[in-house]
């Protein structure tokens, strides 16, 4: 079970939890697992074809997955996965 950091805009899916546990050998499996636990999460992270949306960044231990193996990036139990979506707020 990797630790997944949930950003504020997605916390309504996770009962307001900022940190959840997720299962899966890679990012694709992890997102499926999260969506099983917290229905709706996947639709916020991936488009209809299953690709991770271009305004959402996923980091494994602080490294962006596009610089690793994308959704195939492996995830182990000790990993921390952070989801960082674009936010526009400043005012």
């Amino acid at each position, binding site marked *: 079970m990797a630790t997944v950091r949930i950003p504020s805009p997605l916390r309504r899916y996770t009962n307001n939890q900022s940190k959840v546990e997720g299962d899966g050998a890679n990012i694709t499996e992890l997102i499926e697992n999260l969506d099983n636990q917290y229905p709706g999460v996947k639709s916020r992270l991936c488009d209809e074809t299953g690709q991770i949306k271009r305004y959402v960044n996923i980091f494994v231990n602080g490294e962006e997955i*596009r610089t690793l193996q994308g959704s195939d990036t492996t995830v182990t139990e000790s990993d921390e996965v952070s989801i960082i979506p674009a936010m526009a*707020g*400043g005012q």
Partner: protein
Amino acid sequence: MSYLTSDQLLAQLRRQIKEINVYELADQLEKGEVSLIDIRGLDEWDQGHIKGSAHIPRGFLELQIETHVPDRNQPVAVTCAGGVRSLLGARDLETMGYTNVVSVAGGFTGWKNAGHPFVVPRTLSNEQRQRYSRHTVMPEVGEEGQLKLLDARVLLIGAGGLGSPTAIYLAAAGVGHIGIVDFDVVDTSNLQRQIIHTLADVHKPKVESAARAIAQLNPDVEVIGHRTQLTSQNALDIISQYDLVINGSDNFPTRYLVNDACVLLGKTLVDASIFRFEGQVTVFDTVNDGPCYRCLYPDPPPPGEVPSCAEGGVLGVLPGIVGSLEAVEAIKLILGQGEPLIGRLLQYDALDAEFREMKISKNPECPACGTQPTITELIDYHEFCGVPHLEAAVSANGAGERVAA
């Protein structure tokens, strides 16, 4: 007990310390053979000194010489106004084990009278020395760094949640020229977080309210108000007037616009955004091979998918933290000190009280800053983000004017 008069002491030192004249000094300086230490007082130094000399007032000579001249065998010339105090200084350096010390006979007066060139440094006024003393005492800033801050031209996009603390701290720090782009007026609901504005400013333009607050805090600062919506038509003109841009905008079209304009103009952009209890901050510096906003977020979310602060709320103090982080990054960049957040995204979660750092990379295929950019001019950012144009409340005052406070 035997004693020496000052005349006797000096006569003794003249036998003991080697002296060189100003012509010999000029020759040695030109050859780069000698480290020249000027031990006069600050006021004397400010009125003019020999180029290439280091200033250590005599009272600090023994304490600071090792930082300037670590090698005891390095030739050192000590100078003062007329060549008397420098004898005493040279003696002290010999006592400390410096083996190759001379005193400059005639000192700075002799140097000047011989027609040698000298520099008169730009300095802080006495008032400024007092105001910025906690800055200038730090070696990372010093008087030189404070002058850099006073010369700097920084543009704030928005005088709202992020812009308020950023503007106040930059003004307090003595950043000399602060531009503010904002077309909005102060609303009562702003006062929960936009600390540069007060109840008396409600319904007044934010640029005016901010300018007044800054003028009350620090008269050294010039505020340039741009009471306009930043658009593809005026962005290049406005941003080109500044050295550095700090983003505090509240919508995606402006974020992509500011990013592209900064990439096109080669300006560094300190960027941050906030939502509820969360903030993120980074520095986009494509001139130094850093990523840009489009490397991080190639596409904007569809309208309505990501709630704004007006819809989702924001903790009032959150922009205080994140806007202050932006101010810190800006000051570091102006001073050329430390490690800026280039290629790093700092995320702050107030509820968990945690800061986390993510690595962000330049996308070689980025349409703005990649190897073959396709964005070579500003585009229609509302269309790009799929949101309607904000036509209302746009004034023609895009070129900027000094705001009377």
